[in-house]
């Protein structure tokens, strides 16, 4: 029983970490990276969402 629970949470923690990393990357890219093209395209959204923009 203990082994089963361990295996199950072991299986669960990896996808969760993966999703956390992916989500963080998406937010950093869309909301924070200062590359000119990205900044200009996302400018209005960054302001409206409350991210530090420029």
């Amino acid at each position, binding site marked *: 029983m203990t082994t089963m629970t361990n295996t199950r949470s072991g299986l*669960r923690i990896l*996808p969760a970490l993966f*999703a*956390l990393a992916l*989500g963080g990357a998406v937010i950093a890219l869309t909301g924070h990276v200062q590359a000119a093209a990205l900044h200009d395209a*996302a400018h209005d*959204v960054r*302001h*409206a*969402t409350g991210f530090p923009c420029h």
Partner: protein
Amino acid sequence: MYTRILVSALFAGACAGLIAGILQLYFVQPVLLHAELYETGALSHFGAVPISAHPELPGFDLMRDGLSLIFTMLIYTGYGLILLALMSLAEDRGAVISGRSGILWGIAGFVAFHLAPGFSLPPEVPGVAAADVTVRQIWWFATVGCAAAAMWLIAFGANWMVWGLAAILLLAPHVIGAPEPEVFAGPVPTEIAALFAARAFGVGLAAWVLLGCFAGYFWQREGVYADATQSA
């Protein structure tokens, strides 16, 4: 499990992001465009001539506003991925994840990602004075991290030690203080800046509540689907 998180996050993020984008275009964008007239110097208050508070604003711009919609959907998909990752961990620990409980998750997400950093770095219109952007971004990520951890501790903590730690995590970034500009040099009227911050928070709360609700709903639905395919 990867599929379940990804599919739920994509659906929930796209739906909530689309609604958030439309709300932003209707309620926030006109305030932003109004502020830009002062940022660029097209309008200037406290001049010799009184300035109308209702100037003519540019209308819908397919390229600019289309990109805004797409980026809002992307940002909320990013939020959705983080939210569902934490939801999956919470479900493992016995929490019930559904559309209804997702509303609470959404409010917690709003506090962590919008209200906590916005308490000291309010959503700013273009053309206000602010400190260096990199320093503000570092403060923003640190504050969001602290607030998110605090939300988790408040929700799943079981004693006053843990809740006390959560309070410290919520307070610390603001006691330490956010990066502030050296001098105030913003040309935008305070009325516009205040309305902008209020509107940004309002739309953010609505969008986060929807995101949480959708995330819980799709998570539950994808679970039922996964169980059905497994037993078939």
